[in-house]
């Protein structure tokens, strides 16, 4: 934008107008995406807020009435919903912690040069590349089925190697349902954590490690004081993004146990309240509670992303 001459009388407003036009031109490519997102995320959420203050069962439309915070009281006093909150927390925490541990260990192992590394890496990623419903179906029928699943089949096979007939046969889906769901999710999410932590290991500046080695630092101390602090951000990011996805998990709970035996998490309960019981008001209230819970995690995610974002800009 060129500076207008001194002799021209109304330079200020002219200036401002072209400036504003310029600004809008710059913004224009952004607007379709922005408007689309606002319309389809913020408006439905507001609708949820409104619906959550109504008693509304779609099968009994005549009984619809405004009830204020009653649905929220129900969410926090109803035993099913309260146990769903606990289940969601346990499920998410267990899966995230265990898969970060496995993923980190495997990342350290894969970060070395060894025979067939490319293939081993690919094999380690495959669990993440199976459609979640399909993976859950295979776990339910082909692996954990008590009479012919791979788990019990392997036990029978190992026992028969030693000439034994009565191998122990397990039925984890009935005896440890939540653990079964967690196991299948840990299997699916370990590759995710491995990939992120591996990226962290590979971005480690080697000159610092070399310098430490020259100064006589042992491998353990290099790991403890250089590698681990460097990995912290990556572990954090992996754990937080993993939490966001696993809090919302529906597929594994729905497929493996159909929410029975104490495995119903909040997404499953919301789905059931709305889709099966047709309690629209109550489902909306539960949904709003899920959002509030996720907001806590989201704040940390946003903070971590922001700090990574800033260092990227400095770079």
């Amino acid at each position, binding site marked *: 934008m060129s500076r207008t001459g001194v002799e021209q009388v109304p330079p200020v407003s002219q200036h401002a107008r072209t400036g504003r036009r310029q600004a809008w031109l710059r913004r224009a490519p952004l607007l379709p995406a922005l408007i689309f997102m606002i319309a389809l995320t913020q408006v439905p959420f507001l609708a949820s807020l409104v619906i959550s203050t109504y008693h509304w069962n779609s099968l009994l439309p005549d009984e619809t009435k405004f009830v204020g915070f009653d649905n929220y009281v129900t969410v926090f006093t109803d035993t099913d919903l309260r146990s769903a909150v606990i289940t969601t927390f346990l499920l998410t925490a267990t899966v995230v912690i265990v898969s970060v541990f496995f993923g980190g260990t495997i990342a350290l192992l894969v970060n070395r040069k060894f025979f067939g590394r*490319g293939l081993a890496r690919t094999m380690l990623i495959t669990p993440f590349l199976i459609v979640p419903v399909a993976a859950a179906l*295979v776990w339910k029928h082909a692996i954990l089925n008590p009479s012919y699943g791979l788990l019990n*089949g392997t036990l029978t*096979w190992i026992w028969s190697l030693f000439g034994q007939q009565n191998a122990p046969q397990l039925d984890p889906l009935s005896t440890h349902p939540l653990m079964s769901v967690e196991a299948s999710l840990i299997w699916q999410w370990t590759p995710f954590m491995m990939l992120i932590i591996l990226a962290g290991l590979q*971005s480690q500046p080697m000159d610092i490690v070399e310098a430490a080695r020259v100064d006589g630092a042992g491998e353990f101390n290099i790991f403890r004081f250089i590698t681990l602090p460097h990995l912290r951000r990556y572990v954090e990011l992996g754990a937080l993004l993993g939490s966001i996805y696993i809090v919302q998990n529906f597929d594994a709970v729905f497929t493996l146990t159909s929410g029975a035996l104490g495995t119903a998490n909040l997404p499953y309960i919301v789905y059931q309240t709305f889709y099966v019981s047709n309690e629209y008001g109550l489902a909306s209230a539960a949904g709003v509670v899920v959002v509030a819970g996720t907001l806590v995690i989201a704040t940390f995610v946003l903070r971590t992303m922001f700090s990574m974002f800033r260092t990227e800009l400095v770079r």
Partner: protein
Amino acid sequence: MRSPASVVEPAPATTTPAALPAPPVHTRRRRSGGHLLLTAVTWLLALFFAGPVLWMLLTSFHSEADAATNPPSLLAPLTLSGYGEFFGANSGISPVRPLVNSLIASVGSTVMVLVLALPAAYALSIKSIVKWRDVLFFFLSTKMMPIVAALLPLYLLANYIGGLDKIWFLLIVYMVMNLPIAVWMLRSFLADVPVEMIEAAEIDGASLMTTLRRVLLPVILPGMAATSLICFIFSWNELLVARVLTGVSAQTAPVFLTGFVSSQGLFLAKVCAASMVISIPVLIAGLTAQDKFVQGLTLGAVK
């Protein structure tokens, strides 16, 4: 989880040559003992994690009788009957329509997402906009919102405008789910483009479209490919929304698979064949995008 993968054939180990250059001889000799042990552990873990997938692949090629034995019959004759069953050889229930629906929703939403996300990412990374950081983080925050909270309003909206059991409505919902990912990913790829390149093009009098097409597109094409593959995977995998918003005619492949949740007698080979067929597009997309996968999953935060 507790499925010792050693049962599954460890054949691939010997068939591929080491892709990486061998380390210098002296290091190898110095570390050889521990090195071999760690390599063995790594391979065991790789087999353990790939085990269920390999088992699923093998079972899908077995007959139903051979699939349901205890102990497992690894060397049973291979057959395509599981795949035939899945495609409705006897039942007459064909998964083709759900598969096509999934393809339309996933590819369609991915293309539309790119159309919206590319200009937005361009504006956010190249042109300096007031409060651009706020906008960027607004996009991110929408990705943090659990979709269950929007399920009922989306259902009511679909009901109101006639979008229930319609593939176009599902396509729009998938756009909402993937747009923030695409904006963030594309922004991170565009941020790698040197500003001087764009300025040079502008000084030479190139229009916006020319700059985009001739200067930016070639540079970010790999990034765009990775972005589309990730968006495709997320849409293809989605179950909850599809289950609520579609019924018979717009049913997607994951919804079709929920028909196998409860046991139906001997149907293990069929289930494994079904799981294989529906996972193949994701396996191909994921392995193609392997080197950009992390950048995509972390929305561009990790390179």
